[in-house]
């Protein structure tokens, strides 16, 4: 009976179009935010930060970005891994060329560089769509990774071909490099995620978001009612790549510390983020969170269950883990093709009427 719209009347259009129209949702959201900012820093430790929490935050950013492109604008991309690499290598070049530059700016500039590269590789979308576009982005994936592994300028001619992130501090606390604490890494990524999720929400609720969706749903009609397809698609590529680039920069600087493009940002990463978006729910901000949670937390929990609780050998568990996650993805898509977000919506709709089914 708590979960109600009734009695919660909207008296103006701003209130009617807010993010969480139902009070209960709003309070739930404030609670989560409070928990993430106030409680988590106290209880987080190295193990949880490294195995679950930090990768979850970073991949959610990537999933938000890809969701804008695929879920909102309907442009299929398989180049996410490479765009993350662009963010990573851009942040590396910036950090080494301008050691004084604040790490926040490094990450944001890396996002901007990636946005520019994304627009460049988004140009084919003006001509081709669907699978053909996917193939074009796949070409981008291989080309960019080739560039980063074969052109020594990108890794500053280091003999190993790897890039590694020097220590950078924010308010006197190390957030990158080997001495960065779990709390610092967590808070740094959390701030980025929350700001970016807020930006994504704003961009998708307004006229730009509607133009993206119009292109997604029916591009010809969209153009006839006034959507400039060039602008709509390229802004989607830019914003999406900006997010993905920031995710790549964070993954490299904060989480991995050292990386090699082919290994850290290969095609498997493209698919990982794509799965997150599809499982979470296309065209939903919440879906990006849900999809990333499912694919980051799921395997860890499974491993804990198989290895620690059931005592299975690690390598067997690793294989099984992949199979189980794969089966879960398949089963899930068959049961609810529109992802976790749609499942959640259905539950909420039922809940709104509960306990009276009509």
């Amino acid at each position, binding site marked *: 009976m708590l979960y109600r719209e009734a009695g919660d009347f909207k008296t103006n259009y701003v209130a009617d179009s807010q993010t969480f129209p139902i009070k209960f949702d709003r309070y739930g959201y404030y609670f989560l935010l409070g928990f993430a900012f106030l409680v988590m820093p106290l209880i987080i430790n190295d193990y949880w930060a490294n195995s679950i929490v930090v990768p979850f935050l970073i991949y959610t950013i990537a999933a938000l970005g890809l969701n804008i492109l695929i879920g909102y604008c309907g442009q299929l991309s398989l180049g996410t891994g490479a765009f993350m690499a662009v963010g990573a290598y851009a942040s590396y070049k910036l950090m080494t060329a301008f050691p004084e530059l604040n790490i926040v700016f490094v990450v944001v500039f890396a996002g901007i560089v990636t946005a520019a590269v994304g627009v460049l590789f988004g140009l084919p979308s003006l001509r081709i769509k669907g699978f053909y576009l996917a193939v074009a982005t796949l070409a981008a994936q291989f080309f960019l990774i080739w560039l980063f592994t074969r052109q020594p300028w990108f890794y500053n001619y280091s003999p190993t071909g790897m890039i590694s992130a020097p220590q950078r501090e924010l308010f006197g606390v190390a957030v990158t490099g080997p001495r960065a604490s779990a709390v610092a890494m967590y808070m740094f990524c959390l701030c980025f995620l929350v700001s970016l999720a807020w930006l994504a929400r*704003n961009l998708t609720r*307004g006229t730009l978001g509607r133009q993206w969706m119009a292109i997604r749903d029916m591009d*010809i*009609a969209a153009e*006839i*009612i*006034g959507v*400039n397809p060039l602008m709509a698609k390229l802004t989607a590529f830019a914003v999406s790549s900006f997010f993905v680039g920031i995710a790549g920069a964070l993954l490299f600087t904060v989480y991995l510390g050292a990386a090699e493009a082919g290994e850290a940002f290969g095609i498997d990463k493209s698919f990982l983020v794509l799965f997150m978006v599809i499982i979470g729910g296309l065209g939903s901000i919440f879906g990006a969170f849900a999809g990333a949670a499912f694919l980051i937390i799921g395997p860890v929990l499974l491993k804990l269950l198989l290895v620690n609780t059931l005592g299975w050998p690690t390598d067997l568990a690793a294989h099984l883990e992949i199979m189980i996650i794969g089966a879960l993805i398949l089963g899930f898509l068959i049961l609810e093709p529109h992802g976790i977000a749609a499942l959640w919506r259905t539950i909420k709709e039922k809940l709104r009427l509960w306990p009276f089914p009509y």
Partner: protein
Amino acid sequence: MRDIQADDGYMTADGRKIGGVAMELRNITLRFGGVVAIKDISFDIRWGEIRAIIGPNGAGKSSMLNIISGFYHPQEGDVIYKGFKRPRMRPYEISRQGIARTFQNIALFEGMSVLDNIMTGRLHHMKANLFQQAIWWGKAQREEEENRAQVEKIIDFLEIQHIRKTPVARLPYGLKKRVELARALAAEPAILLLDEPMAGMNVEEKEDMCRFILDVNDEFGTTTVLIEHDMGVVMDLSDRVVVMDYGRKIGDGTPDEVRNNDEVIKAYLGVAHE
């Protein structure tokens, strides 16, 4: 209501004011490969009038609307709009000049709510840039609110308040047609193009739609170009009618003139039609 040249206009029997020429289609020929869809057709559209285009299936009516809205480009002929020859433009640029339309096969954005569909129709009235929208402060929020208020007026006008938040995909056919009209009206067009807005509707829905079209024209003075197969509707609604057959124009005039035109009668008797 814009650009009415009073000296060039006239009053209709029911007291509406028809202005000067808004758009002139001059010697339009459109071919698809070997198929000639439109053959050397000329006619004009006056400000404030309801201009019907009728003709049997495949006559080229939809193709004509597609030319007006810039989706097709004729091989020959010119479109004169507001007194100037229109250069070749993309459809979205043409829509920006105040031309909105509905489609014969409903072309709504199925993944969006009714409200979002109609709001999309107002995109030319929203100028906030990417960064203003991203932070959702000041201009972006203000614009959204103002335009929402306009859209609510249209929602009230078309009596679709109850489905505002419904995903379009869940609506029945008749309501979809109405939402499509709402989306076109949201643009506050100078010229409104309607491609068979009543096709497939029952009598009651048709009556509603007729009333909406007349009211729009009455209240906002919107120039309307209407393709319709139902002759009763056409005769009731329109000020002037163009009759097409096999891509040619075979009649042009008031409903009465057209009804008594020999060639029109022959075309309509000779060809099986609705």
